[in-house]
């Protein structure tokens, strides 16, 4: 593509290109050394962060609320084994023996960082025993499991709120063994796999020992692990195809193996350099950052292709190798620099994000884009000059045939520009109208597609046992020891019952239920006494008695604070959309305000709550990011086009694609998540290239060639139309491949970016020319005297 903004003094660029070729070995050596230096950054302790927590900045209020809650009780993650009886039900001797085996101190308790193991068998059931209260495992190891014992176990389990829909459900075929772990959080890279390896080994041993019982794994540790597993999987399904496709496209466009290999080297330098710089910046790898190589490759390939295509076209016009290279650099230097800078600015806008991995992603890709520019300008010509390319004059006659399509298009646009303009406005308005209908949705289970074991098992648990989402309240009492007040406990009980009436709620866990059970036990298991004890002293002493009877690891410290002045209420929900979940949480908080004493008014916290707010927070912060990108890029354009008027005009075709893209997204999916908040700012830097090229050609036709609006549009189409189609296809293909990621944040980002890029081409081919022709014609008619001083007078 031979873009060259007018009035550029190219002498210093020519000299630069000459030097790069003269000292080519030095340039190549310097490139290799610099890339090596960048890569040395990876030795600065770069790790792969596999925790859902990384998506939240330290000042995120929902994260702080959750940390505060964990500080009061225990800082926990969990692994849930889900066991399914192949035949019969779980209330059979053989099955319960299997549950005992798994939850034995020599098995699940041996998983690294384990703090407690909860199963139907070790549930600390309390029963009246004459005048005494007897606390023991629901399925004691030495119990003979005959018919009546099994029936009693089933009865107790199904009537126990702490078990029902948590570790068992009504169907009697599935049960959970929940392992609570406290990861030290010193090194995610090793801690999570350490736990997961042990979990898998135990599951395998279980499967061999009990072949009739299905075993699955879910829980927060498995979620954390899924971040790295999906990234590993994507290396095969995203990165490899990406390499293959990009090299195929380059080979087809360039029709030269040597040139393709050289461009490939530029890509590798860009990716390695950027990933290495990530280490110098002090970032760590994470699932979102794994999309950086694919993005860099997609964005960087255009630089090399532009320079090489011009080089070959110069060769065909009879120039020798050296002259062709210098001419190509001269022609492409500024446009490639401009597009690289705008792209980088777009990605840098991600620094406004509330979610650190996306800030890192933006910075790493921006770095890669700038490295690609430098490598294309210096390294590429230096290497190409080593290879024997000869001038081969050829008649380039098929260019004519290509441009006929564009001629027809510009003729049609000219004839019906008002209809096109009106149509465009209608489409933009319609799709824009759809945008507010997008629901923000961050259901973390659905971050992973069905090809991953984590998703399959989490879905199974969701359908067959319990919910994977929960939120928690740390509800304070009036004073130290106040959790034993009947008023406090009764309010807790009513709060729990209120939640239980909601169809989205699966299970509610509260100490109030334990109190009711103890009161019943103390009255000979009379169901009439299944209620909160009448006095504070009674409740306190029941609880003391119960605590005295609990074995290692199964204490109440995860539910009651040390001062006995607050307890934890956990609400488990179905995997409902974020919007529904937020409304449930809001209603719960409102219930407390309306029905509980003031000291009990608190807000919910949990990872689920954190994700429920993350999209909204990021959209707000990214509005600023997008504004920054629009401002910076408009200034760049006004300078590049040397016209404030056209710089401002270019805003239209640059902003419209994002509007169209989100509108289409709304129609396609109806929901969006965290990563899509970045897309508007980020794509702006990419789509701006199309309009820059189109406008600069249009302006050159008007200023230098003195063409009228229509003819200038035709000229712009002819000169850059094909190149824009090719680069758009290239970008769309690259981001579509990213759309294949098994990690939804990455795949959605890829898909929406591809859509926006295609929309940008359409806007630049329809809306922009229609706009230009209408505006410039009207202006000429109405006020021919108000010409911009630097614009060449128009003669039709």
């Amino acid at each position, binding site marked *: 593509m031979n873009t060259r903004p007018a009035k550029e003094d190219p002498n210093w660029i020519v000299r630069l290109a000459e030097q790069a070729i003269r000292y080519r070995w030095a340039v190549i050596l310097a490139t290799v050394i610099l890339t090596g230096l960048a890569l040395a950054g990876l030795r600065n302790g770069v790790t792969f962060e596999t925790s859902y927590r990384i998506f939240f900045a330290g000042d995120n209020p929902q994260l702080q609320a959750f940390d505060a809650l964990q500080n009061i009780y225990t800082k926990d993650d969990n692994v849930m084994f889900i066991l399914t009886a192949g035949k019969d039900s779980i209330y059979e001797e053989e099955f319960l023996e299997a549950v005992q085996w798994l939850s034995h101190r020599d098995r699940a308790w041996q*998983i690294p*960082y384990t703090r407690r193991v909860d199963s139907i068998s070790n549930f600390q059931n309390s029963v009246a025993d004459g005048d005494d209260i007897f606390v023991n495992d629901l399925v004691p190891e030495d119990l003979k499991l005959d018919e009546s014992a099994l029936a009693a176990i089933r009865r107790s389990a199904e009537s126990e709120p702490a078990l029902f829909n948590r570790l068992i459900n009504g169907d009697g075929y599935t049960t959970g063994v929940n392992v609570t772990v406290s990861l030290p959080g010193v090194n995610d890279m090793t801690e999570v796999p350490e736990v997961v390896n042990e979990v898998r080994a135990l599951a395998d041993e279980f499967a061999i020992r009990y072949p009739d019982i299905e075993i699955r794994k879910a829980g927060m540790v498995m979620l954390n692990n899924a971040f790295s597993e999906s990234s590993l999987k994507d290396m095969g399904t995203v990165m490899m195809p990406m390499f293959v496709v990009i090299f195929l496209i380059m080979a087809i466009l360039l029709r030269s193996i040597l040139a393709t290999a050289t461009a490939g080297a530029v890509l590798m330098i860009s990716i390695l350099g950027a990933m290495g710089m990530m280490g110098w910046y002090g970032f760590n790898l994470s699932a979102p950052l794994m999309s950086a190589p694919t993005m860099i490759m997609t964005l960087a390939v255009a630089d090399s292709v532009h320079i090489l295509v011009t080089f070959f076209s110069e060769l065909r016009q009879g120039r020798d190798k050296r002259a062709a290279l210098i001419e190509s650099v001269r022609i492409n230097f500024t446009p490639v620099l401009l597009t690289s800078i705008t792209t980088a600015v777009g990605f840098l806008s991600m620094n406004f994000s509330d979610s650190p991995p996306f800030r890192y992603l933006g910075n790493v890709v921006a770095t890669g884009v700038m490295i690609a520019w430098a490598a294309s300008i210096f390294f590429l010509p230096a290497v190409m000059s080593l290879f024997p390319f000869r001038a081969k004059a050829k008649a380039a006659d098929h260019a004519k045939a290509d441009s006929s399509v564009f001629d027809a298009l510009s003729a049609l646009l000219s004839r019906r520009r008002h209809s096109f303009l009106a149509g465009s406005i209608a489409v933009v308005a319609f799709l824009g109208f759809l945008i507010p209908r997008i629901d923000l949705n961050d259901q973390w289970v659905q971050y992973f597609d069905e090809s991953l074991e984590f998703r399959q098992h989490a879905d199974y648990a969701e359908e067959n046992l319990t919910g994977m989402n929960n939120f928690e309240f740390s509800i304070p009492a009036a004073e130290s020891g106040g959790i034993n007040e009947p008023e406090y406990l009764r309010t807790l009980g009513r709060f729990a019952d209120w939640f239980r009436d909601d169809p989205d709620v699966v299970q509610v866990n509260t100490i109030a239920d334990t109190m009711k059970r103890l009161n019943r036990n103390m009255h000979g298991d009379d169901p009439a006494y299944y209620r909160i004890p009448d006095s504070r002293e009674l409740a306190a002493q029941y609880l003391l008695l119960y*605590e005295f009877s609990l074995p290692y690891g199964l204490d109440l410290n995860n539910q009651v604070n040390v*001062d006995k002045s607050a307890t934890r209420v956990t609400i488990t929900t179905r995997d409902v959309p974020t919007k529904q979940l937020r409304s449930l949480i809001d209603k719960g908080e409102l219930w407390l305000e309306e029905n509980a004493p003031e000291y009990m008014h608190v807000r919910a916290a949990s990872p689920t709550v954190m994700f429920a707010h993350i999209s909204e927070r990021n959209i707000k912060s990214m509005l600023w990011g997008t504004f920054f990108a629009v401002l910076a890029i408009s200034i760049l354009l006004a300078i590049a086009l040397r016209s404030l008027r056209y710089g401002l005009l270019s805003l239209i075709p640059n902003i419209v694609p994002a509007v169209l893209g989100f509108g289409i997204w709304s129609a396609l999916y109806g929901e969006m998540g965290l990563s899509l908040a970045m897309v508007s700012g980020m794509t702006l830097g990419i789509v701006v290239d199309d309009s820059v090229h189109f406008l600069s050609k249009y302006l050159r036709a008007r200023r230098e060639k003195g063409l009228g609006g229509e003819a200038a549009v035709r000229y712009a189409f002819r000169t850059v139309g094909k190149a824009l189609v090719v680069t758009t296809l290239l970008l769309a293909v690259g981001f579509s491949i990213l759309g294949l990621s098994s990690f939804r944040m990455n795949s959605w980002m890829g898909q929406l970016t591809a859509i926006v890029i295609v929309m940008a081409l359409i806007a630049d081919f329809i809306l922009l020319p229609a706009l230009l022709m209408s505006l410039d014609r009207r202006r000429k008619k109405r006020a021919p005297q108000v010409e911009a001083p630097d614009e060449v007078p128009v003669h039709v």
Partner: protein
Amino acid sequence: MKTKTRRFLAFQLASLLAVAGFAQSTPEERGLEIAREADARDTGFGDSVAELEMVLQNRHGESSNREMKMKTLEVSGDGDKTLIHFDRPRDVKGTAFLSFTHRVGPDDQWLYLPALSRVKRISSNNKSGPFVGSEFAYEDLSSQEVEKYTYRYIRDEVYEGQDCFVVERYPVDPKSGYTRQVVWFDKQEYRSLKIDFYDRKDALLKTLVFLDYQQYLNRYWRADRMEMVNHQTGKRTDLIWKNYVFGNGFTERDFDQRSLRNTR
């Protein structure tokens, strides 16, 4: 002269043999020997009473206090009898906990609940749970009978400026929450100075440090302060002992179920 020299040589030989014999004993035997010596040095105190303040702290630094009085009766040939009377928090004031430790087999435990005015027996297989929500398990506080563990001498080490034996001990009871404990006994007085507790997966769970030992009746050492830190949760519990009194003349009747009701 001659006989004296001979006698001296014989003495030297004997002590050499003794040292050699000591060296030849297995680490298990040595560990048991140290535990027995520590137990022997604490035998014969008869009874004691002391006030106890328990300070519980979470990772956040929020704390909560419990106050209780603890009476102990030494029982020859079996484990001690202990009566704990709760004074604070006020909701459990008057609650009393009675336990008979046994050298072999599970202990007997009862709890008196004043709000119900009833004595309730506690299922004794759960000795590994936290004692009133603290970082101490019942098994950490109950009397440390020699028979409750098997032992293994590890090494000598200087701890806090004192020469110590480091001994590992392994709970006999499968219901224990620990796989092992590492105890630092000072060589001078055979007092426990520090204990590391390892959980069921043999990861370091807690560390207990004994501070400010005082000697009573010219013989029996008691720490004024015991600090337990849970490494896995960041929580801690400090025990502060006050007003130790020995020789109260307690009898079995002061430690029966009836005595639970009126311990003041």
